[in-house]
Structures are given as structure tokens and as C-alpha cells.
């Protein structure tokens, strides 16, 4: 994570297809399996060890947990029967096979590391393309199942924590200021969370007519400008409502440290305030990675997978509160 905790993670995804085959939604089972084998086979040459999980062999809970970790998509879980996910041990590289495209290579790294993520996934792309003939047209670039990805097939995105811009209602103004970069901003709150988590995904919109390094430079420039605006907004927020803000933050800290049951939504809301409190130095935190890990660990499927059982909403809220108070109690202090 970056020093100020604003850029939580960086991700680069490359969409590729094998030449001479229909796209996955039109691909019969025999050839779908062949695609999986060809892609996985190629990775034998990679420096790291990769393991493969076929979607059909995955439990529902496992699938949901991987989705919560942003490693795989809903489309992969519910599309082609022979879809698979190929991952390295540290889970920072995940290759989806037979999703919307035959091959979706992605690397996700904590913090502001778009370029590192690209270097890593580009190396994997070289390995996969060296033993597979990739669908490519000299004019249109990499051919993808949807023309919105054609060209580089690349999506570079950063997950940003923007409580200052959200609370001062200045997100829209800020995005207009970075509009020259042709971006998409998404706030995807998912089950058990809500807009109060203040998490936004910034990514490039254009994939054709810009090189990979142009895209990285554009997204990075936009992310840095948004980061500067977020810092300014946090200053303004503090100047305008110092006492109320600090009171809200300390109450949130009190609740996270002591609650007996916590819904996912309430947790995200209070956690956003606690993280803001750490930024303002109202609170001390000795291990911010542990906080980010906690956020991932208390999502419903991940929590149940770890507990090894299905829990109803009430049980989950109790289990969540227990984990939260334990971690927050350990790494956050006044």
C-alpha cells in the first residue's frame, strides 16, 4: 500500500485469444478443454509454479471466495463449463481461461505499482504467446470477443480509497478534472458492503490506438492527480468539521474494537473512518497490511471458507466482529 493508503492495489489485465478458434461462448467442450491444456502447458516454462483449478471442480464457496479476492469474475464462474483459473502461489498472477476471451492474464499487486504489474504480466504473456498462436491483426491488434477490448487488450486499473472526495461530494468535480485521460471509474460495493467503503476502481477506457506504456502513463497520471485531490479534500474535511470528524472516527474505532456483531456494511463504513483516523494520526497503526488483509478476510465467502462451514447472516456477523476486534485491538491504538 502507498504511504498514505490511498492506492490500495494496482492491476493489469491482458485479453488474448487463440487464433483459428471460436471465442469461448461459441466453443465446444473438446476445444475448450484443449485451450485450457495449451495455456496451462505453456506455463511449464514460467519461473514460478502455477496451479490450475477448473471451475467445475470448485465448490460454490471456493468460487465466491476467489471472486471476493478479485481473482476471478462472475463470468468465469457462470459461463463456459470448461472455464478454469490458473494461479501462482502468491496469488498475484491469475489467468482466467475460457472467460469472455480464451485467455485473460492478470497481475494484481498491493499499492501504486501499475508498471510492476505490467512487467510481470507481460512476461507471462510472452510465455503463453510463444507456444500458442494468438489471434492478432496488424491493424486492429489483439482480437477480442468484444470490440471494446480490441487493440492492446489491456485494462490497467487502480483500486483507490477516497473518503475525502466522497465525504466532501467532490468526486465528480475531480473526475472531470482528469477527463482528458479517458477513464472509467467504478465503485463496486458488492454484497455486504456499500458506498460508504469509499473504494473506487480507476481504469483506462481506450484499448486501441494507445500503446501499453501510453495506457500505463495515462492511468498513472490520473491516479496521481486523484491522489493529490484526495489529500486536499482530506485537509478541507478536517478544517471544516474537525471535532465532528474526530468524534466519528473515535466512535468507529470504539465500535470495531468492541462490537459483538458486525454486518459487512457497518464494518466497511467504520473501517473507512478508522483508516482515515490513521491518516490524520488520531489513531496509530503499526501494521496497515494487516488491516487490508482483515478487510479481505471478513468477506462472507472467505470467512466461511476459513471457518470450514456455511454460516447464516447472524453467525457471520458475530464471527466478523470477533476477528475485527481481535485484529483492530492488536494493530490499532489511540
Amino acid at each position, binding site marked *: 500500500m502507498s504511504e498514505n493508503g490511498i492506492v490500495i492495489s494496482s492491476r493489469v489485465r491482458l485479453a488474448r*485469444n487463440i487464433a483459428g478458434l471460436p471465442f469461448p461462448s461459441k466453443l465446444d467442450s473438446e476445444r475448450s478443454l484443449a485451450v485450457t491444456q495449451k495455456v496451462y502447458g505453456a506455463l511449464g516454462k514460467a519461473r514460478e509454479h502455477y496451479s490450475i483449478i477448473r471451475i467445475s471442480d470448485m465448490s460454490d464457496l471456493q468460487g465466491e471466495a476467489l471472486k471476493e479476492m478479485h481473482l476471478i469474475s462472475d463470468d468465469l464462474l457462470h459461463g463456459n463449463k470448461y472455464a478454469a483459473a490458473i494461479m501462482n502461489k502468491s496469488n498475484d498472477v491469475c489467468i482466467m481461461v475460457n472467460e469472455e476471451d480464451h485467455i485473460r492474464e492478470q497481475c494484481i499487486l498491493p499499492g501504486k505499482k501499475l508498471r510492476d504489474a505490467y512487467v510481470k504480466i507481460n512476461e507471462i504473456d510472452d510465455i503463453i504467446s510463444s507456444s500458442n498462436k494468438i489471434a492478432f491483426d496488424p491493424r486492429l491488434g489483439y482480437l477480442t470477443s468484444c*470490440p471494446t477490448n480490441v*487493440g492492446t487488450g489491456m485494462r490497467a486499473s487502480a483500486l483507490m480509497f477516497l473518503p475525502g472526495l466522497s465525504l466532501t461530494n467532490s468526486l465528480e468535480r475531480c*473526475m472531470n478534472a482528469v477527463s482528458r485521460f479517458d477513464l472509467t471509474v467504478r465503485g463496486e460495493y458488492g454484497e455486504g458492503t456499500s458506498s460508504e467503503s469509499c473504494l473506487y476502481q480507476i481504469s483506462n477506457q481506450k484499448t486501441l490506438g494507445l500503446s501499453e506504456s*501510453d495506457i500505463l502513463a495515462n492511468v498513472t497520471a490520473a491516479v496521481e492527480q486523484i491522489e493529490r485531490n484526495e489529500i486536499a479534500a482530506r485537509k478541507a474535511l478536517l478544517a471544516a468539521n474537525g471535532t465532528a470528524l474526530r468524534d466519528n472516527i473515535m466512535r468507529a474505532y470504539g465500535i470495531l474494537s468492541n462490537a459483538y456483531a458486525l454486518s459487512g456494511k457497518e464494518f466497511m*463504513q467504520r473501517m473507512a473512518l478508522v483508516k482515515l483516523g490513521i491518516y490524520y494520526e488520531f489513531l496509530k497503526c503499526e501494521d496497515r497490511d494487516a488491516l487490508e488483509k482483515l478487510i479481505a478476510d471478513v468477506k462472507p465467502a472467505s470467512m466461511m471458507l476459513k471457518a470450514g462451514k456455511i454460516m447464516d447472516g447472524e453467525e457471520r456477523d458475530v464471527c466478523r466482529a470477533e476477528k475485527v476486534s481481535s485484529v483492530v485491538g492488536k494493530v490499532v491504538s489511540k
Partner: protein
Amino acid sequence: MFNQRLCDNCGKRPAVYYMMNVINGVATERYLCDECKQKLGFVKKQPNLDFGGFFSAIGSPFGAYDAKEKHRVCPTCGYGSGEYRKTGFLGCPDCYEAFADMINPALVRMQKDTKHVGKSPNEFYSPEEAKYNELLRQRDEAVEKEDFALAAKLTEEMKQMKGGEQK
């Protein structure tokens, strides 16, 4: 201090989904609830099927609809132009050529470009494959210039290669 934002579409349920697109310098924001998000096709429940509603709401980005337009089929995979129009997805890489007249104007609108710059996989072809592709390109060029003698010579060269390495 947090006020829950309501869904832009129904104005009733709380928004759980936020999306902003910045295209040509104009930002458009959407806050949607889960139900409206699905209704408007932001979620692909069954892959490739739910886009119709979304595009009819915002106008198809995949080419203006022309009622007189003939239904066409990709010769390689059998995918229809109507299906592409409806879903925004293609059947196989060759569909780009088969439906070029529909796709290219849409690319100009969506991407503001029609020419790829950046990485290409060619450098990873075996030398034989790269040579074959180069011959193929030269032959297409020759045909375009109506230099059929050269084209025939190149075709002969390619045939000889095919006996060897070419898969």
C-alpha cells in the same frame, strides 16, 4: 455524516453500484441499486445475453441500426451479424473481417482510433512462421496492386514452405 445515496434509476432503493465514464472530456455518473443494475444490463447474468436492454437504453455503440441491413453470417464460425448487433460480442477472430463495415465505425466512436499501436505477438512466432506470414502479407499486397505474376510466385514459395514447418 454519510448520507445514503439513492438509485438514479428508480429513486427508491439505496445505490450499491457506482460508475463513471469519462468520454471525450464529459463525465457521466450513475448510481444504481442492485435491481436496476441488473435490469439495465450492467450485470451479465447469462453471458452475452443481457446487453440488449443496456444498449437500447443508451443507443447501440456497435453501429447504428439500419432496418434494410442484410443479415450476414461469418464464413468461419457461422455467427450472425444480428447476434453481434444484439450482444456486442463476436463469434471468432474472423468475425472482425466479416463484419468490418459494422465494427469499424463503432470503433471510431468507442475508441476514437482504428489503428493498433503497441505490442504484437509476431516476435514470438518461429522464424518459419514469421517468414510465412511475411510472404502472405506480400502476396496480399501484390494482389491488391494486381501484380498477379508476383502473387503466383509468392504462392508457390508459400506452398513449398507448407510442406515443411507450417502447421
